[in-house]
């Protein structure tokens, strides 16, 4: 069941909420059990067998965490082994369902072997759930989590708002909230929840999906080996960047809103990433909880261990002005690229995802290297930040857009083909109809290498307008977190001390204007439920 479906919005959600509030008025334990059961139903909706796969995994993880809880102080060695075993179990579970075919296929390609590829069922949301379970085990072993029951744990893993497209939550930020829930109808929470949910629905259905329909043929052609001119290639790249931007942003808002109906605040996961001024900044705004997870559980331990080892050998370590090139490579570049490699393969079992991850790893390294070098050639940080901010923004934006081609293109070769198109390898073209209308300007365009083509002028116009509007929204408008900041739309979000004019102008209040405006937005979303929609997260 998708959030953007009639059955969810008019069937499942009202039923679950009604049951939750009614039970909560009598007994909050029942209400929480109801919520867990509803989440299981949500999980089973698409394929009931999903439950059979996920239930044992929950039980095993719970048992392991019990062992960890008992042994972490008393028998640290045993706890360590249990933890590693638990991590390995979860990774194997994920690996079996998500990556087996990919690896077998790769081996077949590389060595001519004949492993049989089977049609495996990919349990919904498995990638998110796996990371959450690993984080939970680590937290238990570190003593950051205590006092938990199987009911708590199941609710934490299965809580349906976060199940499809994140965020990746930590037990220690969720469970205190669940413990403090009144489980009653609370108009404050519902008002914020309704706003977030329908913002998200509108983003997904009105902004992302039409773009997806517009650019799909371009990627289809690229996959078929048809070279795309500069115009088409950039439409494909920008279009997909904006599609996934609003798709993810929309799903994130819907998740925040759904959780808020129950009184739960999920952590922020998406914060206007296209406004980022550097690639590091991008990753602190795009899929925030994934960056948080990978940094805390992969990058930091790796860097700490490597740094300590180098120190023990008396070699220079990474850090500031005295960083040596070997230290940079072994303590920053290597862990960063490895982390982003993992991020890439986490996003999908395919070469293009791996390449995408590694590309971002390289970009992050360049960003870090520049941070080391910059003070030597441009010591005044304040002036640098002021003058170079636009340059940083443009570089980041272009890098992200180039990277997104890998994310969407069906094969690496079609991605390369689109990159070549973007850089002008196949020339630039405009529809004949546009040329006919330009007159002398058209002739001038022809002299600089833009040639006419029999492509549709109206499609180009629609693409240009859509890309322009979506870019303007992504770059110039305040985001949901800002508009709703005084009501803590996501966990820990607070209003900025200085609020720009646009934020103040659009600031959400539970007043009549926003009620009517939101009704319009909600209806537009609901009316669009029947249109063709693309679900991007089967892979996760």
């Amino acid at each position, binding site marked *: 069941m998708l959030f953007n479906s009639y059955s969810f919005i008019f069937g499942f959600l009202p039923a679950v909420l009604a049951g939750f509030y009614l039970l909560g008025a009598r007994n909050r334990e029942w209400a929480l059990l109801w919520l867990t059961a509803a989440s299981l139903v949500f999980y089973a909706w698409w394929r009931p067998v999903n439950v059979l796969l996920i239930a044992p995994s929950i039980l095993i993880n719970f048992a392991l965490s019990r062992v960890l809880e008992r042994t972490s102080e008393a028998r640290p060695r045993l706890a360590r082994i249990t933890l590693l075993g638990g991590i390995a179990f979860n990774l194997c579970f994920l690996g079996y369902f998500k990556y087996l075919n990919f690896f077998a296929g790769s081996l077949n390609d590389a060595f001519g072997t004949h492993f049989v590829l089977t049609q495996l069922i990919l349990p919904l949301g498995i990638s998110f759930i796996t990371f959450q379970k690993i984080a939970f085990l680590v*937290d238990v072993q*570190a*003593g*950051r989590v205590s006092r938990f029951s199987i009911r708590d744990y199941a609710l934490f893993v299965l809580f349906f708002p976060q199940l499809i497209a994140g965020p990746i939550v930590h037990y220690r930020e969720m469970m205190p909230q669940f413990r403090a829930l009144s489980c009653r109808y609370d108009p404050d929470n519902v008002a914020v929840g309704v706003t977030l949910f329908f913002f998200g629905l509108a983003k997904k259905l009105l902004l992302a999906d039409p773009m997806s329909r517009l650019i799909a043929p371009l990627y289809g052609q690229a996959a078929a080996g048809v070279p795309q001119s500069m115009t088409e290639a950039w439409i494909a790249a920008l279009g997909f960047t904006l599609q996934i931007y609003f798709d993810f942003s929309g799903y994130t808002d819907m998740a925040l809103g759904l959780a808020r109906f129950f009184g739960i605040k999920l952590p922020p996961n998406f914060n206007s990433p296209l406004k980022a001024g550097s690639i*590091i*900044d991008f990753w*602190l705004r795009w899929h925030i909880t994934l*960056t*948080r997870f990978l*940094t*805390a559980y992969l*990058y*930091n*331990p790796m*860097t*700490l261990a490597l*740094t*300590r080892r180098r*120190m023990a050998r008396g070699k220079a*370590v*990474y*850090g*500031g*002005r*005295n960083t040596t090139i070997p230290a940079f490579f072994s303590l*920053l570049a290597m862990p*960063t690229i490895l982390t982003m490699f993992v991020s890439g393969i986490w996003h999908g079992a395919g070469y293009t995802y791996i390449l995408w991850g590694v590309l971002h790893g390289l970009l*992050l390294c360049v960003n*870090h290297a520049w*941070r*080391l070098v*910059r*003070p030597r050639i441009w*010591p005044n*940080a*304040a002036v640098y*930040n002021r003058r170079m901010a636009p340059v940083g923004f443009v570089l980041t934006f272009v890098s992200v857009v180039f990277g997104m081609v890998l994310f969407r293109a069906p094969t690496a070769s079609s991605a390369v083909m689109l990159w070549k198109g973007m850089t002008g390898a196949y020339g630039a073209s405009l529809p004949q109809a546009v040329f006919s209308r330009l007159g002398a300007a058209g002739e001038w365009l022809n002299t600089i290498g833009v040639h006419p083509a029999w492509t549709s002028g109206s499609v180009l116009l629609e693409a240009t307008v859509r890309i322009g509007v979506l870019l303007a929204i992504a770059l110039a408008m305040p985001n949901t977190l800002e508009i709703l900041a005084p009501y803590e739309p996501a966990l820990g979000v607070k209003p900025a001390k200085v609020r720009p004019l646009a934020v103040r102008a659009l600031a959400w209040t539970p007043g009549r204007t926003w009620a009517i405006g939101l009704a319009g937005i909600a209806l537009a979303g609901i009316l669009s439920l029947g249109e063709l929609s693309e679900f991007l997260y089967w892979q996760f």
Partner: protein
Amino acid sequence: MNEQDILTGLTQILRDVLGDDTIELTMDTLRADVPDWDSFSYINFIVAAEAEYGIKFRIADVESFENVGAVVKAIGSARAR
């Protein structure tokens, strides 16, 4: 070595890590208060501090320091042991 000395030392370390000599830290400073002090440079700051003071943080502690004051206190207690 008192907390003020450690704070001064950490300030210098962070200035080195971020390449920004204008940084001033207090016990209440949060990571979000310092421009560019993201999670990537945070770990660099932590290992630089470990090297400077000859101590070793627990990875779980590294994740849960609330503010600069918490780091200062952790260094102080580690050195006291």
